């Protein structure tokens, strides 16, 4: 139930981000400066933390999505759905911990210097 709610919320979130992301990438057809200015926004600390949130949403949606596929197509999927949720959440936590430094170090450098 809650995994379903989270799957839904993250799906909508990613969709809205993707819409904006295609628009900002389209600036490469305007001029290099227009694109680089927009990307500078991505490099600000605040947006850096939002990116980490985006990574969290995508990772959860992807891992839980694979679990949904397994429940639907694997004969024993339904029986192990709960264990698979814990595997997905565990992998999510692991990957989030691993992503923290590479994704956030730029934001921290901006905030506190190198």
């Amino acid at each position, binding site marked *: 139930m809650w995994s379903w709610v989270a799957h839904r919320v993250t*799906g909508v979130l*990613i*969709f809205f981000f993707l819409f904006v992301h*295609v628009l900002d990438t389209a600036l490469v057809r305007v001029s*290099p400066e227009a*694109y680089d200015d927009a*990307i500078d926004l991505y490099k600000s600390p605040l947006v850096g933390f939002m*990116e980490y949130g985006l990574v969290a949403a995508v990772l959860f949606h992807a891992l839980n999505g694979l679990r949904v596929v397994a429940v639907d197509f694997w004969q024993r999927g339904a029986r192990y759905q709960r264990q698979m949720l814990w595997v997905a959440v565990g992998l999510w936590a692991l990957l989030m911990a691993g992503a923290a430094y590479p994704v956030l170090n730029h934001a921290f450098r901006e905030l506190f210097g190198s």
Partner: protein
Amino acid sequence: MAIDTTRAAGSEFSPDNPAPLIEPPRTRTPHSPRATRTNFELYGWLFMRLSGIVLVILVLGHLLIQLVLDGGVSKISFAFVAGRWASPFWQVWDLAMLWLAMLHGGNGLRTIINDYAQNDDTRFWLKALLYTATVFTVLLGTLVIFTFDPNIR
């Protein structure tokens, strides 16, 4: 509605004494939903799962390249984009990711609108907005990938 399906004593059913007619269930009435005659929803369901599996590689690979490897977000610039889109491999990667993600997300949002928007007009307009935004985004993104010019200035 009491239809007597028991036999009156001593009276077998016969052409002169026919068994009572039982209406077949699921007879179509003016209130029945429109017959769809297609398996659209089945294919939509299958598409969500197949595209999801492919998107795991495309999207997580994309995040890895753009946000994690080689300095993360700090390396991204017009020059970086130009370098990647010089290769047909990354053009095809990004094009497939764009189309699959937009159709997957668009179809997902269609389901969500169907779930929550109960008023016919609201549902119609929300879907009109969704389809417009989806087609616009897919076409714009496709155009950008195909017409990208590293020497724009």
